[in-house]
């Protein structure tokens, strides 16, 4: 069982209209309401591939109920810690005539100390039965920045590998807890941000394996020695060439790298799988399996840790 943690689960509401007239009443032609957020997308990808996955984290109010129901329809089991406030909504309005999309994001709910304490207790029970834990996505208000570090420590106490996919301080603070894998999609907010922050720098700070997304490429390295995971150390670069403007779904990439952590896949195989999956999944974690089959044979793997020129 893969345990994914959603600390700021979201309801994504999408409205489509032929043309939006601001300041006027508009009829919507189509509306969708889906559970979203980093860890939820990872869970959806994994469930689509037939994995046993459980989502924990915070959910509250009617929005929380929508999140649980949508995940259930996707075959994803949930064990949310209920909070007193509504989970947040993100509303996207698509103006088809102008081909413009406008997003309205609610603020994250404030998590009280009592709610955090309940979640910590529940997490420690759940992680004991997991094969791996995925910590992905943004944080709700009121949560300490080192929450992912704390959860990675709890996972380590239970001998469960932790995968961290986050930005800035939340990820940086987790590195010295030796997560099994970290994935970054940008260097924003990282100390020393710039060309120098790559997989090697993340390994130096304590992660056992590290990967970085750069356009349609995935750069990865594994720490050598007993602390590292099976396989050569890399670094490697896996990419889909000839697809200008293509970007990979980070959440699908996380799901694609899991077999290297949990099942002992060779890292080159996991990287090819992750890149193909990342190119075949949408933001919510729905995977086009036909696209995956086509693209997985086109992933190019080479040594190196430089950024993709495209």
């Amino acid at each position: 069982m893969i345990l994914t943690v959603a600390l700021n689960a979201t309801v994504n509401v999408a409205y489509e209209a032929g043309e939006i007239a601001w300041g006027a009443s508009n009829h919507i032609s189509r509306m969708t309401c889906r559970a979203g957020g980093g860890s939820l997308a990872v869970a959806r990808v994994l469930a689509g591939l037939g994995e046993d996955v459980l989502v924990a984290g915070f959910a509250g109010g009617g929005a929380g109920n929508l999140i649980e129901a949508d995940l259930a329809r996707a075959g994803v089991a949930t064990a949310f810690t209920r909070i007193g406030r509504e989970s947040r909504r993100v509303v996207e309005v698509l103006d088809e005539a102008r081909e413009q999309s406008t997003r309205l994001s609610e603020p994250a709910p404030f998590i009280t100390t009592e709610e955090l304490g309940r979640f910590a207790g529940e997490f420690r029970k759940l992680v004991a039965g997991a094969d791996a834990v995925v910590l992905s996505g943004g944080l709700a208000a009121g949560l300490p920045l080192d929450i992912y570090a704390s959860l990675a420590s709890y996972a380590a106490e239970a001998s469960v590998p932790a995968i961290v996919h986050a930005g800035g301080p939340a990820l940086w603070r987790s590195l010295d807890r030796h997560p099994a894998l970290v994935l970054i999609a940008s260097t924003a907010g990282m100390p020393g941000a710039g060309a120098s922050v790559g997989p090697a720098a993340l390994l130096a700070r304590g992660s056992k394996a590290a990967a970085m997304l750069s356009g349609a490429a995935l750069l990865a390295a594994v720490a050598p020695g007993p602390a590292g995971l099976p396989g050569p150390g890399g670094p490697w670069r896996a990419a889909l060439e000839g697809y200008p403007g293509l970007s990979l779904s980070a959440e699908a990439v996380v799901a694609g790298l899991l077999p290297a952590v949990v099942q002992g896949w060779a890292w080159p195989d996991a990287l090819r799988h992750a890149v193909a999956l990342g190119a075949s999944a949408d933001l919510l974690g729905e995977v086009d399996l036909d696209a995956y089959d086509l693209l997985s044979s086109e992933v190019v793997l080479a040594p190196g840790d430089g950024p993709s020129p495209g």
Partner: protein
Amino acid sequence: MARLLIVHHTSSPSMQAMLEAVMAGAGTDEIEGVEVVTRAALTASAVDVLGADGYLLGTPANIGYMSGALKHFFDGIYYPCLEATQRRHYGLYVHGNNDTGGAVRAVETITTGLRWHRTRPPVAVAGEVGPKDLQACWELGATVAAELVS
């Protein structure tokens, strides 16, 4: 008369010295028209926050985070005060044995959500509190008080 609310968790002689300096600055005779109210974090309520015009927050840094007492305070006042206290001025002082950055960031994450306006950078002291630190605390208190009547 403007009201300045000081919410503090004072768990050490260093924190006590900083609190006294902040209170002295906030209550200086040079600034007229400000009433200073002081509450321990464990007793401060939404009523206190709603009834004030600006805030001074004081906390030790515990394991890279604000004190549990101050977090408990925020737990109780966040939603009741979310709409009514936007753009109010606040100041912060923090003391820790080592790094205070985590505690400062944790408080600022919440005050950002509350849309409180930080009057000046926090006074963050790691290690022994010296005369310059106490002077900075005095100035912090005076500055926030002065903002309320400016």
